[in-house]
């Protein structure tokens, strides 16, 4: 152990490296993964850094094993993460559901590439959004963030660990090849300035709970999150992917199942306002609003500024969080703005969500992946929307 845990200072760093440094700064001490382009640099960085700081880098046999190892490390009390891309995320889907069911905090970064299947290994995509939300079977809820710069990958990786621990839920970072590989300034603060939310632990020592034992899945009424007992703490804890009662024991009843699954959804829905992160620009007087995220949001920002220079009252709503979806914010916005443009490197995944919220079709700027969307087609969509709005007002 010779390395510094927090590399305080100014760096010129790519997004993948910034993810690993954000995780280490957040106290992540277990990485289990199977390297895959374009996320490989995350694993490479961890493989160099973890031995320096007493952490574990474990290269697994595949992505199924990777996320299983991460869940095990989390159950033992470690902040743990993995990194992958689309094909690997597909393989992680079953155990993502296990993580939700066992309420084990963990972080998964998906550096998205052109998909489906093997797709475009070295080129960018933004098309794993719905898979992140719905890809494991059953009703469940996770949290997902979409950074737009290496600095934001660093910041959001730290935040992801805090959210995962606070809500006992897997948190995904849905980044993309552009942000993962681009090299930009990353400022790493002093270690005491790194925010840290601790896991909620059992309030009493193991012996307090007597014969009945600690109820590892009994939620607090206030936030629906149960305190977590770590393996080795001395509490008797039973983990199962089967439907379980507050003790964690299998309970094959419709009532228990309904109660459990509803709570797993509700603990995210009820806390959505704390989880949702948005950035807005020029929304006050906007006639047309672009909704975008990740690398595409950079082009959207340029398009909005160029449109403003042309006299078009354009605004930007950047989704820093993707899930939970900011339904209420977009519904509220739709009372003031009638025209929306959704720009994303897929064929309409977030546009469908926006249409669901605003209640009518919106204009989409889509590309299936492989090349970052340039500002020009977004600007074209803004011009077309502005012309349409002007036509309506005549």
């Amino acid at each position, binding site marked *: 152990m010779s390395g510094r845990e927090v590399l305080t200072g*100014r*760096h*010129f760093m790519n997004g993948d490296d910034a993810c690993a440094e954000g995780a280490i700064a957040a106290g992540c001490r277990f990485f289990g993964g199977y390297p895959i*382009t*374009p996320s490989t640099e995350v694993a490479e960085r961890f493989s160099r850094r973890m031995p320096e700081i007493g952490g574990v880098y474990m290269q697994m046999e595949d992505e199924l094993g990777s996320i299983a190892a991460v869940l095990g490390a989390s159950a033992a009390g470690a902040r743990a993460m993995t990194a992958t891309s689309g094909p690997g995320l597909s393989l992680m889907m079953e155990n993502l559901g296990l993580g939700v069911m066992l309420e084990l905090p963990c972080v998964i970064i998906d550096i998205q590439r052109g998909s489906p299947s093997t797709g475009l*290994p*070295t*080129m960018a995509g933004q098309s794993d959004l719905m898979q992140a939300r719905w890809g494991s079977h059953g009703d469940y809820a996770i949290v997902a963030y979409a950074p737009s710069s290496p600095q934001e990958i660093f910041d959001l990786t730290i935040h992801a660990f805090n959210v995962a621990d606070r809500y006992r839920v897997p948190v995904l970072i849905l980044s993309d*090849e*552009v942000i993962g*590989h*681009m*090299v*930009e*300034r990353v400022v790493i603060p002093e270690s005491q300035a790194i925010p840290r939310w601790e896991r909620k632990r059992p309030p009493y020592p193991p012996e307090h709970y007597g014969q009945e034992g600690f109820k590892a899945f009994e939620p607090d009424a206030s936030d629906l999150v149960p305190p977590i007992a770590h393996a080795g703490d001395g509490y008797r804890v039973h983990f199962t992917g089967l439907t379980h009662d507050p003790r964690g024991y299998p309970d094959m009843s419709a009532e228990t199942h309904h109660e459990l699954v509803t709570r797993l959804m509700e603990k995210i829905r009820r806390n959505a306002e704390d989880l949702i992160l948005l950035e807005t620009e020029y929304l006050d007087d906007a006639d047309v609003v672009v909704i975008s995220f990740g690398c595409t949001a*950079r*082009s959207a*920002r*340029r398009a909005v500024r160029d449109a403003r220079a042309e006299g078009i009252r354009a605004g930007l709503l950047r989704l820093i969080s993707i899930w939970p979806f900011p339904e209420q914010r977009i519904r509220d916005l739709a009372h003031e703005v009638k025209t929306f443009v959704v720009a994303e490197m897929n064929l309409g995944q977030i546009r469908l969500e926006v249409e669901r919220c605003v209640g009518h079709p919106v204009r989409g700027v889509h590309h299936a992946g492989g090349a*970052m969307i*340039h*500002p020009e087609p977004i600007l074209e969509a803004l011009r077309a929307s502005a012309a349409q709005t002007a036509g309506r007002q005549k």
Partner: protein
Amino acid sequence: MYHEIRLSGFGGQGIGLAGYLLGKALSLYENLEAVMTQAYGPEARGGASSANVVVSENPIDYPFVQHPDILVAMSQEAYTKFRPLAGPEALVLTDADLVTPFDDDLVQAIPATRLAEGLGRRIVANVIMLGFFTQATGVVSREAMEKALTDTLRPKLVPLNLKAFATGYAYQPDIASAP
């Protein structure tokens, strides 16, 4: 101030490192915004290699170089491939011994590889080119580049690379010899 810069050559010349050093100097030591990108796919394996830097006073939205206004070419293949993508008025720097420019193209040439061999290490041709770039373009200061070299490279490599940088920085191209 806004520049799209492409550094190019063949694999093994340290083009990626040169792009990283330039971007780092601009981003960390010049109070400017800079983004560095590289091709990652099969196109980056063998053949022409490139590293791209966008630099601006303002935050950079679209990070990719499309039409470089400054092009560095350290191989004929890279020159032939990338010169047409740069504007006619682009500033073009070449390795004098490795690139024969198009007939009507005015380039600033430095025999970077030959000078590097003179220093005993051919692999510092990229840093000689960075020295030449710094002097010829004025985009980045000598101090910022030297700090990037010093902060990035392993300490035992720093003296040789500072010498290589100084060699390129001091070089006066013989414009008259251009065809």
